[in-house]
């Protein structure tokens, strides 16, 4: 490692590079380089330097690391997880070292640091002169940023398909993101959030009383990254549907889904890094789907099943299951989804993503799915 100052980077995942960059810059006081927005080139680069049978998120991350390092980053962040992802940090590091890159890796897994204090110490190592209080001070702003992004996107998914002026939601959303990048304080984020939601609520929409409702469920990375899932949510929403998605960073790492304060406290107290990112929601969700599963199959599989059950019971018109090709936890969830589909008579569209770049296949399937559930709804209503 050269004596160059540290310059951190984290792979693209939706728009979460904004809060993560903020945490690094303002909290740790270090430089942060966002990988460029993912493109076909990112995937090609990632796939070229990855094992063939590894999942698409690994390849996306690989491409992001390479592109970010070309832009000047020299410390890559990897967070691990409860599936194969738990070993991805080591594998990324080895491959990138073999390629000749000069960098350090902040591999936030237990195997590296032994416990939460070890991990915090591991982060601190990069900013030795920084006080803990300086780091802690930015946490509320980071959390607010994440929650704002998630709430704004949630509102978009539910309403953009019914806009009167084409592109009106997208325009406000883009403005929101660019302003969020400039936010300095929690107050800035709060004001921006309220302004954005107010602008949204003023947009003319023609939403029926009983719109077509679609729930999106599936694997952690692919579901949260619109580039990886070929903007499946936007595609379906724009056909004229209210699209719901529970899985996001707010729900998976910030807030407990428990109903009462005591359970919530218990979940937070048990915040277990070994089961990241599922520790705060997996127990309460598993209780709700007892009739379908007794064990946690890892990663986001419990959330997939719990939310499928919830959406189906709420009378949704259809579900879309997204996963990267070969994702084992989500493949294990599919037979359970078949049961939910049969029990509630709700159609489920299964989409498996690899590194293909053509949109056509996904468009064809999404359009056929929307046609089917909307025609079915019409037939039922008449």
């Amino acid at each position, binding site marked *: 490692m050269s004596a160059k100052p540290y310059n951190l980077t984290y792979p693209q995942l939706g728009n979460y590079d904004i809060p993560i960059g903020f945490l690094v810059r303002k909290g740790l006081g270090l430089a942060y380089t966002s990988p460029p927005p993912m493109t076909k080139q990112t995937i090609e680069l990632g796939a070229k330097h990855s094992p063939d049978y590894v999942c698409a998120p690994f390849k996306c991350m690989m491409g992001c690391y390479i592109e970010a390092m070309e832009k000047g980053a020299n410390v890559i962040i990897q967070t691990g997880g409860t599936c194969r992802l738990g070993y991805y940090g080591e594998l990324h590091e080895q491959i990138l070292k073999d390629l000749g890159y000069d960098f350090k890796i902040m591999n936030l897994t237990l195997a590296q640091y032994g416990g939460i204090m070890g991990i915090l110490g591991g982060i601190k190592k990069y900013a030795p002169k920084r006080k803990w209080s300086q780091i802690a001070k930015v946490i509320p702003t980071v959390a607010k940023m994440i929650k704002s992004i998630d709430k704004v996107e949630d509102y978009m998914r539910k309403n953009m398909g019914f806009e009167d002026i084409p592109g009106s939601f997208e325009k406000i959303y883009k403005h929101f993101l660019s302003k969020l990048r400039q936010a300095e304080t929690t107050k800035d984020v709060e004001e921006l959030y309220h302004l954005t939601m107010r602008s949204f609520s003023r947009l003319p929409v023609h939403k029926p009383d009983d719109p077509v409702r679609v729930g999106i469920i599936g694997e952690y990375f692919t579901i949260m990254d619109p580039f990886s899932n070929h903007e499946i949510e936007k595609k379906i929403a724009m056909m004229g549907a209210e699209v719901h998605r529970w899985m996001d960073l707010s729900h998976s790492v910030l807030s407990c889904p428990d109903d009462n304060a005591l359970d919530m406290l218990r979940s937070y107290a048990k915040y277990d890094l070994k089961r990241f990112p599922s520790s705060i929601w997996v127990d309460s969700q598993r209780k709700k789907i007892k009739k379908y599963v007794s064990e946690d199959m890892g990663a986001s599989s419990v959330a997939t099943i719990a939310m499928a059950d919830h959406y189906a019971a709420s009378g949704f018109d259809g579900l879309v299951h997204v996963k990267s090709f070969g994702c084992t936890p989500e493949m294990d969830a599919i037979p359970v989804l078949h049961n939910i589909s049969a029990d509630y008579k709700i159609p489920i569209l299964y989409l498996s993503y690899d590194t293909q770049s053509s949109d056509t296949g996904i468009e064809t399937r999404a359009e056929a799915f929307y046609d*089917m559930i909307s025609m079915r709804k019409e037939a039922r209503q008449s």
Partner: protein
Amino acid sequence: MKKAYLGIDIGSISTKGVIIDEEHNILASVYLWTEGNPLGASKKVIQELASQIDLDEWTVVAAGTTGSARKLVGAMCNASIVKNEITAHAVGTTTLHPDVRTILEIGGQDSKIICVEDGVAVDYAMNTLCAAGTGSFLTSQARRLGVDVEEFGKIALGSKNPTPIAARCTVFAESDLVHKIQMGHKKEDIIAGLCNAVANNYLNNIGKGKKILPPIVFQGGVSKNEGVVRAFADSLGEEIIVDENGHLMGCYGAAILAHGSGIEKPFSFDVADMEFVTREVICENCPNHCEIICVYRDGELIDSWGNRCERGVIRS
């Protein structure tokens, strides 16, 4: 003049077209090979359709397109509706067979299943990332065995002892097949085994988790193969209905959807004589390098698509 509706289904292998009246009766129909030229094949279809009806009696007020080249041909014939082939097939088949519960379909490159309740599709599945067990697999194996694929069905029906062939994956099936040939299995047994493999592969993949209820309609190019029809009948223990117009269901559905859209757009059979040219433009605005297709009619840009964002918009 009475109103008529035109539907074209442009698949990877074949192009199909129909003209229907307001009661959805078929007035004219054409089926021919695409031969890698969707625009040319569609022009030929339009010409032949025109020759089958009395143009003084009928006027086409709306056109619909479906199949993998639906967008391109839709731009060419000023279509009222451009629909995916799953919806088009569901609409076409449920119109002709209102009591159908399950539609099995195996085409040249894809396979799908549609479950129907009270004449409305309620669930479907389509193959992803893999073309195992589709028509093109049978065609390539027929070539290996030195048999015309059209003969496959008849030969398979002659077998008393079908050879078991691995059905999971085309690559495995092929090596299994070569092995069985070299072992000395009879040709008709191997062909019957292949037909069974196609049916079992379909049921284990596309059909997984779906309730296959009768009446069952089987369509797509592979439905013309009696060996596969028998394999499905044996596996499912149900009668398999193969409609003689099964290959027309996509374009028939597209024509019905064009009628149902309520959008009437002038359609002229003259498009068959016009010159349509496509040009591919690579957008250089970002590393996505979107491939944008521009369609020109007699030198004039009429449509373009393929860009992921507004930076790649090409306007006439």
